[in-house]
């Protein structure tokens, strides 16, 4: 093989391979566009006013909506945030500001471990811990399961963003004679606020679509479920139930619900990222 042909073939390989990587990128990004487009077409088309205002109809009847599932999801996510975020946030503050070596290592290690636990296993845990002991399925059990899932990311994002706060700020506040807790509460944490809020929002977006841990904690409900001690309907569980049903009308509603859920999650996700990028921008100036 001559040098010239070798060079030509090397350039051929170069172009082909680089072209391929571009193609792969387009395929993957295309998958997202396809999913969004498909859900938009099939979901938005099947959305109506009743979807947001009515209760589900008895099995096999057409019509009705998922008003209770929307409220149920909001309620469970609210509880999950109330459980997962404070613990995770304070734990993150501990790791970033107080942690001593071996205990902090253990906390960090187990947080990672918790983060890796498959959601279905969290479901088992919440079932044995809450449902079996309380003797009923409840919104609280569902909130508990999702709350547990929120802890690790809360911890790690809080820690990460607190660490990113320049030390000068801390020292400046302490030098003025401010007690450490006051310096943290009024200077350091506010400085990391955008990052921490972003972390919470991304966290929320992640658990908002969780189905598996809710199957045996909040179960489902055809009616409104007052309070937090009753089985409760949620959007993801409704999508699962309706998608596997043999009724065309339920399939339509599953698409509509999928669309609503996805829009909700993407909105949280995108606005979280916007908060972060804006804060980095203003911080960088």
């Amino acid at each position, binding site marked *: 093989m001559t040098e010239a042909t070798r060079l030509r073939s090397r350039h051929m390989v170069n172009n082909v391979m680089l072209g391929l990587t571009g193609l792969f*990128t387009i395929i993957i990004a295309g*998958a997202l566009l396809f999913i969004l487009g498909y859900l938009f077409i099939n979901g938005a088309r099947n959305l109506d006013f009743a979807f947001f205002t009515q209760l589900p109809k008895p099995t096999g009847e057409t019509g009705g909506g998922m008003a209770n599932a929307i409220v149920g999801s909001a309620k469970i996510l609210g509880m999950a945030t109330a459980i997962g975020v404070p613990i995770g946030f304070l734990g993150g503050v501990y790791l970033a500001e*107080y942690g001593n070596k071996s205990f902090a290592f253990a906390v960090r290690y187990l*947080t990672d471990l918790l983060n890796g636990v498959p959601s279905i296993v969290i479901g088992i845990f919440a*079932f*044995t811990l809450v449902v079996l002991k309380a003797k009923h399925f409840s919104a609280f059990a569902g909130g508990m399961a999702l709350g547990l899932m929120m802890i690790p990311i809360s911890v790690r994002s809080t820690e990460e963003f607190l660490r990113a706060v320049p030390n000068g*700020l801390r020292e400046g506040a302490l030098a003025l004679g401010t007690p450490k807790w006051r310096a943290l509460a009024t200077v350091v944490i506010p400085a990391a606020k955008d990052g921490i809020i972003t972390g919470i929002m991304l966290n929320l977006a992640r658990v908002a*679509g969780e189905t598996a841990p809710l199957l045996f904690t909040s179960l489902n409900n055809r009616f409104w479920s007052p309070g937090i001690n009753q089985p409760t309907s949620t959007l993801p569980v409704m*999508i699962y139930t309706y998608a596997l049903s043999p009724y065309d009308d339920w399939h339509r509603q599953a698409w509509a619900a999928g669309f609503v859920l996805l829009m909700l999650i993407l909105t949280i996700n995108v606005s979280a990222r916007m908060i972060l990028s804006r804060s980095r921008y203003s911080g960088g100036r």
Partner: protein
Amino acid sequence: MHSSETLKVQGEARVPGTKRNPGARAFALRFFSGDEIARALVTISAALILLVTVLLVYELWINSHLAREKFGWHFLTTQVWDPNAGQFGALAFVFGTVVTSFVALLIAVPLGVGAAIFLSELAPPKLSNALTFCIELLAAVPSVIYGLLGVFVLMPLIKQYLHPVLKGTLGWTPLFSGPFYGPSMLVAGIVLAVMILPFIVSVSRQVLLAVPNDQREGALALGATKWESTWKVVVPFAQRGIYGSVFLALARSLGETMAVTMVIGNTPQIKASLFAPGYSIAAVIANEFTEATYDLYVHSLIELGLVLFALTIIINGLARLLVSSTAKFSVSST
């Protein structure tokens, strides 16, 4: 850089910082200093996290003891799952879980790493950021929606287009033999591939971006083509991190429940053909956990949970070990 932050901070410093009940705070302050309270509060929270995780492992361990005592290691090596006879073996589920995840990796790794190369090495930063953003959003799509799409879109498409092609070209191998009904390990693998792609792309891209520029420049200066410098220098340099991203994705796919349950066919069997339906650990727990009618059955399911837990912990640990040595995680990709 600091000035604007400080300004912002000072502006907010006037806002009372804590939200605790002032009465209670004053009361507590009489006995402890604020610092002691704050330290106690955060330490308790940290300890709580520790406690919860330990409790989780403990509950799984205690609530599976009947199955562990009765079957021992045979639980993992036998295939019969017969609730009526009280015989429980996890092999078919482990098989289904591993095979579908493997199929997913087979598809997702070349695609994902390829895309990561494009995004880190070729695309202009603005385009790269925009595309990465899109790809990371894929990770935000809920599992149950992937299942929905898998059932109503992917399954019919595969049946109509991909299956005849595979059958025609590779039908002679046991991997692609036998009839195809729709729900199958193949469909589950493909759905999983889409679900794990964002993790591979996002982490691999970060790892590749972290490769120092002189590596690239050195290779190019020696007359290497762009591809050669990327493939022979940059990628090997980032190898550990890329492996890490793959393990991270693997851990995800092993524990994935809803999408798999909806498309895998829920049949506990060990078949060589990817066209055959199978069953995964997570899927069987989702399907049978609420209805296991006696204790040994429940304990066997929880032991399955324990097995899944152990599997993902090991894989996740490997991933973190590999990635943390090369690049930092972003919040969204953990």
